[in-house]
């Protein structure tokens, strides 16, 4: 299964022309009909069904919709962040594309080959032509140095952006994916055995031939020497600038590009849903039910807790199915109000048996509900010293039986 960000990026790149054309529209808006026409225009041969499918892919993309559908006005809006990403793809982040560098290196290679052809020719060679070609190489090298400097700054800026924790995490992650793809060819270009290194080596040999040829004027030999130094300087600078820039950005790219655990993905998803729909949407309490006793202070002193235990006598009587009666439907029993009840207990000077007291006060509640209310009241009273533990006592209501140590309250 494809990674969600990779899928997103793929959708983005596969619709590059289409999205670019929407980005040029006023407020990045376009009517639904117009959009379908453009999908057809950029994808000749698409059937009606394929067009709808492509539209749905763009509207339902994750982590966020690339195109936002406004059903009321029947128009489509390009997502703001996509516009930003798209502008970046159009070199707005100032990282010069590897193709540009490759073109300059090819110019140097071509000039070097032409110089060598000229020197190797049988007739008298054209020194003027050699000088012109050397000038071309000087210009290309100068441009390469500028690009190298520019890339170094641009990558440093991107490193800062990836580090900026106030930028949305998902957004930085997508940007990291794009930067990674963008930088990969540049990495290949500055390898030890890369095209750029091979061209520089060949050009250096050509310039060496010029300096070794006794029939060539000293002026041209001197120019060849300057070009050699320039070329060595450029080669070193291009590689070092990129290497140092890659070194600074790589840890952040790795952090964003590494496969995330389900824990991280799930936490991100939960936080995103909280942002969009509020925490209630997550329905956390149904998964993480806590108990009322989870309060910062210790409610009961452990040392004070003496012989207290509970034993349940399970009823042996089998419970069979019963017919539904109208009376059952009318037998709604409201829950016991804990706060009021505990205030009532603490309002007394003494309650000999709290459970018995509750059972008397709430005769329609079953034994389980009364026991639960007792525990809640103990927690609410929150003063163990006022509780008194007695002998094993037997309690029963309907078919429920309970043997439990008596708990009383004395002020």
């Amino acid at each position, binding site marked *: 299964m494809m990674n969600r960000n990779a899928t997103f990026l793929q959708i983005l790149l596969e619709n590059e022309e289409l999205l670019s054309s929407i980005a040029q529209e006023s407020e990045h808006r376009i009517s639904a009909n117009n959009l379908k026409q453009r999908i057809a225009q950029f994808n000749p041969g698409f059937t009606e069904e394929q067009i709808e499918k492509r539209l749905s892919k763009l509207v339902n993309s994750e982590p966020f919709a690339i195109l936002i559908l406004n059903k009321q006005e029947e128009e489509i809006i390009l997502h703001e962040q996509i516009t930003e990403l798209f502008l970046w793809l159009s070199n707005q982040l100032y990282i010069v594309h590897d193709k540009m560098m490759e073109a300059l290196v090819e110019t140097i290679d071509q000039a070097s080959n032409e110089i060598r052809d000229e020197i190797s020719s049988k007739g008298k060679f054209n020194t003027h032509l050699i000088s012109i070609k050397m000038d071309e190489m000087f210009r290309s090298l100068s441009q390469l140095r500028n690009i190298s400097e520019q890339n170094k700054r641009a990558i440093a800026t991107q490193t800062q952006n990836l580090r900026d924790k106030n930028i949305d995490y998902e957004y930085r992650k997508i940007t990291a994916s794009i930067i990674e793809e963008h930088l990969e060819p540049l990495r290949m270009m500055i390898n030890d055995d890369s095209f750029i290194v091979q061209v520089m080596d060949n050009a250096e040999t050509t310039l060496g031939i010029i300096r070794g040829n006794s029939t060539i004027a000293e002026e041209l030999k001197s120019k060849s020497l300057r070009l050699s130094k320039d070329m060595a300087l450029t080669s070193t600078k291009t590689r070092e600038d990129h290497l140092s820039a890659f070194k600074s950005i790589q840890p952040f790219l*790795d*952090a964003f590009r590494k496969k995330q*655990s389900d824990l991280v993905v*799930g936490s991100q998803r939960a936080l995103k849903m909280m942002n969009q729909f509020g925490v209630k949407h997550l329905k956390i309490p149904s998964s993480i*039910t806590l*108990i009322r006793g989870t309060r910062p202070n210790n409610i009961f002193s452990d040392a004070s807790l003496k012989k207290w*235990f509970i034993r349940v006598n399970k009823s042996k009587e089998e419970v069979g199915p019963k017919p539904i009666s109208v009376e059952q439907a009318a037998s709604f029993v409201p829950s016991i109000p804990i706060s009021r009840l505990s205030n009532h207990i603490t309002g007394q000077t003494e309650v000999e048996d709290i459970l018995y007291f509750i059972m008397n006060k709430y005769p329609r509640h079953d034994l389980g509900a009364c026991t639960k209310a007792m*525990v809640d009241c103990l927690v609410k009273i929150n003063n163990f010293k006022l509780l008194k533990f007695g002998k094993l006592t037997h309690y029963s209501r309907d078919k429920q039986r309970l043997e439990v140590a008596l708990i009383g309250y004395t002020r």
Partner: protein
Amino acid sequence: MDIRDRMINGDFQTLIWGLLRGEHIDLDSQDYTFLEEGYDEFQNTFQSLGFSLIHELGGGFFYLQRVKIADSTEKRQANQISTIFFVTVQVLQDQETNKTAIDLPYLLNQRGFPLEHILSKRTLPNHLSRIMNGIGIKTDDDMIAVLTKMQTMKLVERISSDGTWRFRRGISRLEQLARSYAEEVEGEEE
């Protein structure tokens, strides 16, 4: 003396009341063995009080769960505790620059994490700080209060006065909750 007799003798009050306070009894605690050996007896006791004793065998801990759905205070606490956990995972992921995966073993390391520092309003990214505000954790004191609640439940433990906390085994309840949302994502993609 078997577990039942020891219960009648009152040997386990501390353990029982600890669970009723919301503690998660994990393998690090001696009481874990008692709960394991006398599971049926303890379960019987707690069910009579309206609770269910849950044994997370894989995670290595016990905890109590109310049979009935939580009230508003409990819901609020559960939401705050879970939010702090999700935010912590996000911050740790953001800080981790090497290839270490943020998973349960990562969280359970004994050295812990400077939670009070990384979750402080001074250092928390704006978008995460807004989420914390939305759930009622508006100040650093609020955040420490939630961590303290989690400590009462033995989900975390403050191990140093400089604000370093470590996660305990019980945190795997929240880890499972987080992973359940990840599974939802995968389901949608398929």
